């Protein structure tokens, strides 16, 4: 474990960008975990007397149309947005990469079936698919997670398929076969782990998109519903007030969104460096 922390320290200090991204990421995680404890006000408590107040010392981000503290809502929304993004990406990654690996390794019919599956998924825009799922199975946050996961699946399947294809005939894989491994064991223990470093970059980029997806869907009323605090919904509700001059309702959640996506994009390289043993000196 010591080795790991030494390497972690090396990765963080070697590239300042990784350090910044790492710091930002840790901040987001802390806020997500400790949100309820950190908020100065109850994010759901409305106060008719304090509606639409601009940012001030009492309310750093101002208040919204129901008198709720925007700062508290932005903080608490971190948990929901991250949870949605992480679960969607996790499902997407696991299912997609396994399907893609099987397709790339075994070829033939497996490849054709997985190929047609991913083609079908790619034919749908996210919003159409989400609306379809919501209509069929109900408007819940869970279903939005599934919709986002499905939409991103082809992404991983394709990368996995290529990476596996490239490595399938590498000498070290043949050598492992000589050591008594069956095809499936080869795929699981030799090829799949080697595929992870390039996937890391994909995963972190995807996290950014997943957050935007979730926000976009709730913007159009799917998934998350009021009064739940979520960045996308807050931007949607706040959009109408920009014209009348109450800019803070939409700006702060929007900025939070931007910061989160930014953080994940920057994190990609760092994550890859972390898990690729070749980066260790």
């Amino acid at each position, binding site marked *: 474990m010591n080795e790991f922390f030494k390497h972690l320290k090396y990765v963080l200090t070697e590239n300042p960008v990784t350090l910044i991204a790492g710091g930002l990421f840790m901040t987001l995680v802390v806020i997500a975990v400790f949100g309820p404890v950190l908020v100065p006000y109850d994010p759901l408590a409305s106060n008719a007397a304090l509606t639409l107040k601009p940012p001030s010392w009492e309310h750093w981000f101002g208040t919204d149309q129901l008198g709720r503290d925007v700062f508290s809502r932005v903080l608490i929304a971190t948990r929901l947005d991250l949870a949605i993004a992480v679960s969607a990406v996790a499902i997407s990654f696991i299912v997609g990469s396994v399907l893609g690996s099987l397709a790339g390794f075994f070829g033939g019919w497996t490849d054709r079936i997985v190929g047609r599956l991913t083609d079908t998924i790619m034919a749908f825009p996210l919003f159409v698919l989400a609306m379809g799922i919501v209509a069929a199975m109900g408007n819940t946050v869970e279903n939005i997670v599934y919709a986002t996961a499905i939409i991103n699946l082809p992404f991983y399947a394709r990368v996995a398929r290529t990476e596996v294809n490239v490595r399938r005939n590498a*000498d*070290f894989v043949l*050598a*492992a076969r*000589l*050591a*008594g491994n*069956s095809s499936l064991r080869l795929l699981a223990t030799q090829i799949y782990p080697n595929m992870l470093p390039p996937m890391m970059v994909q995963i972190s980029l995807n996290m950014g998109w997943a957050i935007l997806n979730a926000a976009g869907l709730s913007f159009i009323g799917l998934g998350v519903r009021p009064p739940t605090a979520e960045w996308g919904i807050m931007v949607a509700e706040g959009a109408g007030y920009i014209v009348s001059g109450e800019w803070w309702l939409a700006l702060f959640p929007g900025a939070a969104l931007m910061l989160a996506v930014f953080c994940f994009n920057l994190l990609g390289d760092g994550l890859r460096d972390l898990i690729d*043993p*070749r980066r260790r000196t």
Partner: protein
Amino acid sequence: MTALLDVRDIRKLYALAGQGGSGNPLLRWVRTRLTSAVDHTPVLHAVDGVSFSIDGGESLGLVGESGCGKSTLVGMLARLSDPTSGDILFAGQNIGTVPSKQFHARPERTDIQIVFQDPHESLNPRFTAFDTIAEPLRGLQGITDAAELRRKVEEVAVQVDLPLQLLSRFPHQMSGGQKARVNIGRAVAVSPKLLILDEPTSALDVSVQAVILKLLVRLKQELGMSYLFVSHDLNVVRLLCDRVIVMYLGQIVESGTAEEIFTRPQHPYTRALISAIPNTGPGAVERVRLSGDPKSPIDPDPNACRFHGRCPKGEDLCARAAPPKVMVNATHYAVCHFAEGTAQDSGAEND
């Protein structure tokens, strides 16, 4: 005495997608119905009728240029791929009939191992040297106890002169010679009877080559193995091998003891190969120049010599009839119309 490995008329043929079209059966049907194109699938003859044997404790060299089929042949012998036809008999058992995907579970898997060419490519970048050597011990000898595994891996490391502290290193932290030792260690860990060496020293610096070659010789004696030594470095083959076979475009063109092949080569291709070896001493062999590239291995003419066109000796006969196998003596044969010896199967004597 039964030979350890007996390869009989082994072939590997690949059907390629139709000329200019795809392998899609629907498209092929359309093409043949609507155009005057002939429905013919070209076949690539990667290995075309190879037969040889290796006895216990013997070291056989396999020589040939890229594209001659040596890698395909090695793949089949190690049962990583299946032959299209022909038999592979190992210690009397026909292992050619076992599908390659299931061979990993057979007891013979332990007996045939390969040392791969490029130590960089043949080591999993995420595995330490320990993991790499432990893999066959876990997979083939079923050793699960951690202490015993460590003991055995260290035993192997000592046997291949790999310093024990290197066992925890990753491939990118080791030198070429060290990686070569891990490669060899992994292959001999289960004491195979036949070790196939695919250019084991060609990626190494010359200063390290000698010690690795000597290690291989020592291991062969200690573990009583037979070697199939595939290499393009003819000097090394001469030093290490008892017998040599020369391949060209999927077929064996000459076979004999190392001495015979290097001092009295009968096939023009073998002569060209030997004359091409750079020579530092006096009395250099006169260079035999080959023109052009080898013929295509796709749909070769069964009634012609495949070396014709590049051969300095080519005559009409070579384009009209496939050359016979000519026995120069009991241990040495060459497949050429002009080899000196007794032709087999043809009845007539060739000069």
